[in-house]
């Protein structure tokens, strides 16, 4: 019976996995077709040779090394900053008592409901006043917070019994120490997951980097993907090749962090 259940689980998962995997496989297949700017997607012939050189060509068509560097820098700093500001705020919202806590929290959640398209222009104007247009600051500073991350971390922090906090406080730990020495290590899976999600969002951001930068020196990978599409047609194989090498770092990051996200937490050494 148990074996049957496990088997069923695998079967279901495998079926879903095919649906998840298919588009990705398709992307790789298209990236290996003969490169040409065409109006429609190339139909693939299995017999034809695989054009691995597409990856080399795509890489050379735009300054992708530069874009990589920029994307890495922007993603690393924004994710780090987001986690830092969110952890602090999430701690305040989950463990500290202060005037207007509920109202402020709800107000912040409400702010995430504003469509970004509405904020784009005023923010751009703010950056112009700060003389930040076409600088890394424009790419990074507005994204140093994430209310979603704060929300997610607060939800996680709330699951720990208050008694733990009080016990630590009675033993003489400050809030700061409790946060960084107890709460953060305990919540590593959630923090890693949230950080990963934010990193992906930042890595794939397209409109903002395009709007606030004017020179290719500061542009990021998603903007680079536009190189392959023109008004009259698209070089699909090269576009897909480039998409693959844009995605791969995220996959590597995911694989590297996976064990932190799903590794169960051991509560035995909590007292330490």
């Amino acid at each position: 019976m148990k074996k049957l259940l496990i088997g069923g689980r695998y079967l279901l998962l495998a079926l879903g996995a095919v649906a998840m995997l298919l588009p990705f496989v398709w992307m790789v297949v298209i990236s290996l077709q003969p490169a040409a700017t065409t109006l429609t997607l190339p139909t693939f012939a299995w017999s034809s040779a695989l054009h691995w050189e597409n990856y080399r060509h795509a890489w050379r068509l735009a300054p992708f090394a530069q874009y990589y560097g920029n994307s890495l820098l922007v993603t690393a700093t924004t994710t780090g900053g987001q986690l830092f500001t969110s952890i602090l705020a999430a701690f305040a919202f989950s463990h500290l008592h202060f005037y207007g806590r509920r109202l402020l929290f709800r107000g912040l959640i409400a702010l995430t409901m504003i469509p970004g398209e509405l904020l784009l222009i005023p923010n751009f104007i703010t950056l112009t006043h700060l003389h930040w247009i076409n600088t890394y600051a424009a790419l990074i500073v507005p994204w140093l917070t994430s209310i979603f991350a704060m929300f997610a971390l607060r939800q996680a922090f709330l699951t720990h019994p208050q008694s733990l906090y009080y016990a630590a406080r009675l033993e003489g730990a400050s809030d700061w120490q409790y946060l960084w020495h107890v709460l953060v290590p305990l919540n590593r899976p959630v923090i890693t997951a949230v950080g990963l999600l934010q990193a992906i969002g930042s890595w794939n951001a397209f409109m903002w980097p395009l709007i606030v930068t004017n020179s290719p020196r500061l542009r990021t990978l998603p903007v680079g993907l536009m190189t392959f599409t023109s008004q009259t047609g698209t070089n699909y194989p090269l576009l897909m090749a480039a998409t693959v090498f844009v995605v791969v770092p995220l996959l590597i990051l995911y694989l590297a962090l996976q064990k932190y996200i799903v590794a169960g937490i051991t509560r035995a050494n909590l007292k330490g």
Partner: protein
Amino acid sequence: MPSLRRLTQCFLLLTGILCLSACGHPAASSQAAHRTTITFWHGMTADHQAALTQLVNRFNRSQTRYRVVPVSQGNFGTLQQKITVAAKSDTLPTIAQTTYTNVPNYVQGHLVVPLDAYLGKRPFQDVVPVFRQSISYRGKAYAFPFSKSARILFYNRDLLKQQNVALPATWAALHQDGKRLKSQHITALALDQSFLTELNDLTYQAGTPLITRGPRANLNTKQTRAATHVLWDMLQDHTATTAGNAGYGSTQFFAGKTLFYSGSSAAIPVMQASAPKGFHWGTTVEPRYHGRQGTSVSGNDIVLFKSASPAQRRGAAAFLHFLLQKKQTIQWAEKTGYLPLTTSACQDPHYQRYLARHPNARAAVRSLDFGFQDRAFQGYPQYFTAINQSLDRLTTTQTSPEQALPQLQQRVNTILRENRGA
């Protein structure tokens, strides 16, 4: 605690970077110091971008005073968005590619300056007459024609021969052929997602353009309804199809069961690259209607922004002047498939030899004799959205022209009224 240390390191690194980047950047290079930089935002990518870069490099080599820096802003959609945002924060480039139909709005927003003062009238005299139509707004030259194309009819050579069909002289003939061939599962005409260009052509040929002086909208007149029916009836009896989400009708055209495709001449190079092996195709001018010829010319222009310094304006004028020179405009046309901008370039033996080698490029050049461009007016982008939405309803739902056009007329009247008040 390692995680705390790491976080602190992250934060320090981040502050460091911010300080560095916020300090502002020194001038891009020292050589720019004594040459005036002309920033040129454009929407060209891939091969077109390469062709443009070549022209710009040649200009820069010929210059000691000015340096043009082209910046690709992706496609025309994102380019337009960049211009909008930059305009609102006063960070516009010197010149940018855009359509002349935006000029009235830009003039109202005090964003652009006339080119006359810097370029003079002379260079424009040689510009192909139909392109000249769109240069001026309220008596001043604002839009410099740049990447221009014409609507043409592509045909499947083999299918035409096999079915013994002649190139259609009129829209009626095209419809007749279509009815005859339907039994053989052959579609006469493939259109792009929107048939606005074709409708524009038909109403122009009937002598009653959609927008006339004033501006006045003639969207619900007897003539417009009749012209809409020419296309709509073909769609209804499936002698014509629209491309839908595929965007361009060429997809269906290349599938081999379609005689004609009405599309932009700018697509010729890409069509050459995408045509299946053994597929033979040719191009001709659009059919007549009411016995008249008339073809929409569309594409993009270049405007000069007010925020540019006097030196930049002079430099921009020098660059535009350079683009109009025979050698440049012919090279541009040959490399990209856009049309040469001047009459002398069109007649140049070098370009004529190119046409002889590339017969498919001929139809668009021929169309210039009876080409026309839309009237530009304040609120054009709104009008454009409104009419495209109406036509989309005609193609994707059961709506008839009699239902859609009165609504459209009303909506466009409101748009025109609001913009007159602005």
